[in-house]
Structures are given as C-alpha cells and as structure tokens.
C-alpha cells in the first residue's frame, strides 16, 4: 500500500501540469453544484430562521412574497401601505400586540426602517454601543451599516433622495446615530432604524420649517388669509432635527391614518393567533400572512429552479467523468510499458492497479477538496452581503 502510494505520488508530482489540469477539471465541475447547494442552503437557513420567529404579518393586499421580503428582510419595495387603524383594538382585547414596520426609504443606500422600541424587544436586539432613540431624528444602526459607513455614536447619516429631479419632494433628513446594534446575524445588521414619526418626516408627511406669522416676509408668503398663512417654496425647511427646532416639526393629519408598510403581529397565545388570523383573512383592504408558510412557497420556486441547475450539473458531471475515464484509459495505454516493467521486475499486477487507484483517489480528493474549500469561501464571501 505504501509502495503504491509512493509511486502514485511521485507520478503525480512529476507531471504537475497534467495533474493540475485534472484536479482543476474535477474542482470546477464539483465546485458549481456544491456552491449552489451551499448558497441555497445558507439562504434557506437564514430566511427560515427569520420567518419562523415572526408569527404573523399584516400588510396591504398584493404579492405575498413581496410583502414577506419587504417586511422581514427589507428587500424590494411594496407600493401599497396600510394605516395603523387596522391593528387598533387588538391589544385592548388581549389578543396580542402589533409592531409597525415602515420600510419605504433608504439612508445612504441602507434600508431605513421606521418602527417602535417593541421591535427591538421582539427581535431580541441589543445595543453594542450608545442608547435607543428617544427623539425625532435619531437612529440606531445595524453593525454592518456602522462598519460600512464608518459610523460611531454621534455620527450622522442622510436619508436618500428618492428622485433627484423632483423639486417638490422632501429634503433628505440628517439622522444622528445614537446607538449601534450588536451583530444579529440577520437583516437588522444592514438596516438603519428610526422612530416611526421620523420615518414619516422623511416621507414628507411631517416637516419642520421656520416660524410663519404676521411678521413673516411677504417674499415667503403665497397666500395670507385670516387664521391661515400658506408659504411658498422659498421658506426654509429644516433638514436636521435638533433640540432647538424639534418643536417646529409637525404633522398634517391624523397619525392613525398615516401609512405603515406592515405590522408584525405577536399574538398573546394560540387562541389569539387563530382569532387574529381569521379576522385579518376576512378583512378587506389587508392581507395576513404567516411568514413560515409564505417562505415555504418561495423556497418551492427556488428549488424548482435549483432542480433545473441540478440536472444541468448532473449532465456536466457525467460528461466530465467520461472524459476523465478516457484520459485515465489513454494514460494507462501510454504507461503500459511502465507497468509491464514493474511486472517484469516482480511487482504484482495488483500493485499496478493500486498505483492507479491511488492516483485517481489523490486527484479526485484534491479536486473535491478544492471545490469544497472554494464553495465555502464563496458562501462565506457572499454571506457577508446576504440578508443575515
């Protein structure tokens, strides 16, 4: 056995280029299915973990998968919203409680999520540094956002302007970072969290501007009537909320009617869950989804696509195996004299087969090893950019 290994090792290391090509072929052919398998597995685990810990989500009617991706993973944009009225009363009835999740904007490219403190409690999020936001215009950021933007407590970041050429749109709001979350291993790591009201200000529902009264310059006034003054666009709107100007921020309308992307519903118990699910299922203008079930539907689609890839990889694998078999067979023809010499000297025919078996084993194991290492490296690399 030792002799066979030595002879095989010497042969492979002597003809390095030939050996390298064979190993490379095996590594490439094995790498693709392994990487896809690992990536799908990784995505599935991460997505499932998030979905499994979220009992119910209530949002506007439309695509279930869009609502799922938007509310849990902060991916994509759902144009429809609901108001806080849809969840009114559930706490009073003791059925559970609703946590608003309002994701419509971004801050320096990162998802900007308006929510309440309950969200952090529900997700079990903890602060690595700083404190929770208790003030309009304050934000806590996920640890990857902090890393990517070089943010610390006291830093600021800007909400993104949705359309650069829309001069009627609201200005970007400067947000002050008051806390940085501990690494969670979920999409929260990549999000910027603000108070729900701050999110509405960014949306333009609330705003702050310089005081307007009878003494205000006419240059800023569009219309002046008794008890009502309408200003024009020349009025200075605040782009940062500070202790000095916070009192000048206000909302027009009833906050109960303000838009919210969705609510995470946390039922008090199984009974509450059943009642709430049934209630929202029959209610017009909303849809309720159980994330775990919706995710299963999504993964079914993913697996259908993966099955196609698997079949493709299988065909490539068989083709490559046949080519490798041909290479080995031709190699044996070329090396017939070498093996015959070994036999004439006194080696058994079995040793010859053992040498070739070792060669195949070394090449295949090295190729597969490289493929496994490569796929792990790719998954590790990509996972840093994945939602969780």
């Amino acid at each position, binding site marked *: 056995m030792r*002799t066979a290994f*030595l*002879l095989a090792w*010497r*042969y492979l*290391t*002597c*003809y390095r280029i030939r050996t390298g090509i064979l190993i490379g072929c095996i590594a490439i052919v094995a790498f693709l299915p392994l990487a896809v398998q690992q990536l799908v597995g990784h995505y599935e685990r991460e997505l499932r973990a998030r979905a499994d810990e979220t009992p119910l989500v209530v949002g506007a009617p439309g695509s279930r998968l869009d609502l799922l991706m938007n509310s849990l993973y902060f991916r994509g944009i759902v144009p429809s919203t609901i108001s806080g009225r849809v969840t009114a009363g559930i706490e009073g009835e003791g059925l559970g409680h609703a946590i608003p999740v309002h994701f419509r904007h971004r801050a320096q490219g990162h998802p900007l999520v308006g929510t309440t403190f309950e969200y952090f409690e529900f997700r079990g999020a903890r602060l690595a540094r700083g404190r929770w936001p208790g003030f309009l215009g304050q934000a806590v950021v996920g640890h990857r956002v902090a890393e990517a933007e070089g943010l610390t407590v006291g830093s600021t970041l800007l909400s993104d302007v949705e359309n650069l050429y829309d001069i009627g749109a609201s200005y970007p709001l400067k947000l002050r970072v008051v806390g940085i979350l501990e690494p969670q291993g979920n999409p929260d790591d990549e999000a910027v969290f603000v108070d729900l009201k701050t999110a509405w200000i960014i949306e333009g529902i609330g705003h702050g501007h310089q005081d307007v009264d009878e003494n205000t310059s006419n240059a800023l006034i569009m219309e002046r009537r008794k008890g009502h003054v309408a200003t024009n666009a020349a009025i200075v709107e605040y782009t940062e909320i500070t202790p000095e100007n916070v009192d000048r921020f206000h909302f027009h309308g009833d906050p109960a009617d303000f838009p919210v992307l969705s609510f995470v519903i946390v039922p008090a118990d199984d009974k509450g869950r059943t009642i709430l699910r049934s209630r929202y299922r029959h209610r017009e203008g909303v849809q309720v989804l159980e994330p775990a079930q919706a995710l299963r539907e999504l993964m079914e689609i993913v697996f259908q696509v993966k099955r196609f890839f698997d079949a493709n990889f299988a065909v490539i694998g068989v083709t490559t195996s046949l080519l490798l078999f041909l290479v080995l067979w031709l190699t044996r023809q070329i090396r017939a*004299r*070498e093996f015959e*010499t*070994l*036999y*004439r*000297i*006194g*080696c*058994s025919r079995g*040793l010859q087969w053992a040498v070739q078996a070792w060669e195949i084993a070394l090449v295949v194991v090295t190729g597969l090893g490289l493929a496994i290492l490569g796929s792990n490296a790719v998954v590790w690399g990509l996972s840093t950019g994945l939602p969780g």
Partner: protein
Amino acid sequence: MRTSVSVHDLAFRYQSGSYELEVPRFEVAERERVALIGPSGVGKTTLLYLIAGILQGHRGTLNVLGESTGSLSESRRRQFRLSHIGMIFQEFELLDHLTVRENILLPYLAGAEQARSEDVMERMRRLSARAGLEQYLGRRPCGLSQGERQRVAICRALITEPSLLLADEPTGNLDPATTRTILDAVFEEAEEHQASLIWITHDHSILGRFDRTVDFLAEFGEAS
C-alpha cells in the same frame, strides 16, 4: 558442476497461436556466462522471459536455481523473480517519475524479500559509486545520457544480489566504450556474487568475453 538453468523439451505458444517456440535442451551452469545470439524474432527474448517466469511454457520442464518454476503459482514465480533474478532490458525501462535512487531500489519498493535495510542502502551506494552515478542519485533519469541510464538499469538488476542475471541486449544502443564499461561492471558483480549470466547480443565483438556462446537459430531453429 551444478546447473543454474535447465530446460528440457520446453514449448511455448502465444495466445494468438501464431508463434510457437520449442527448446529441446538448454542448460547454463552455475557462474557460467552465456551469450545468446541469433537474428531478431527467432525467440531469444521469449526464452529469457520463460526462464524469468514472466511467460510460462505449455509443455516441458524448466528448472531455475534448483526450483521447478513451471510448477509455481504466478505469485510465487513473481516472488522468485524478484528475489533471485536480475533483469536488464535493452530500452532500460526506467521510471522517469522516480529518482535514480528510487529506480535502483525499485525491487525493494516492489516487495523483495529483504527489507529496505541499511545493508541495502549501503549496497545501493556501492553499486552507484562503481557505476559513477553517486552525483545523480537524487535526480530523475530523464536527464541522463543513454549510458548513464543503462547503468542505472544495471544497478537496479544487481541491487538484490541475484543468482541469475538475464540481459536482453542491454548494450545494443551503446557505443563500444560504454559497452565495455557496462560489461566490466556486470561481469565483476556476477563474479562477486557467483551469479550466472545469460546475455542476448547482436554484437559479435564481445562474444569472446563469455564462457560460451549459444547460436539460437542453430541450436533450436526458428520459432514457427
């Protein structure tokens, strides 16, 4: 005098059936050096392979070093060859992916009875020194000259101190000076270990150095 090789009425036929060799009687005495001559294709190499146990006759008796090799199993014949017979081939048949040292020690790697002991290493060093190969031991044979490669092959054949040396035209591709050097080395080793020697050659200028010359065609006729 005792015989090293004794062949009686030996017949061999290749599986294709197109070639049959018959050797009525052929003997080589202990320590005898026999040159085997004859035109190509008459069966000289086949006879050598029969004696080595690489091929097996379908009739007759063959006694090598006191062992009736025809009655041995394939495995026993192989072991017998590995331990008692040294073979030198015309094309050297070295393994280019092994070093010169490993090529010389190949019979031990292949499982010769003796372990790869300090004695063997000492013998390898002595043989390679006598063949002028010490500086090449760590190199691969592909970079060596024809003469050097053949010397490696001879060292490989001699490393087990065989009692019978079978050489299949080993100097056929070498110049006269190298041929002389190699003959000297082999004869010296054979003498030292009291080994018998059967040497196929087409070079009539070296026949005088052998104890006896057997003209294959005259002795056994052409294989049919």
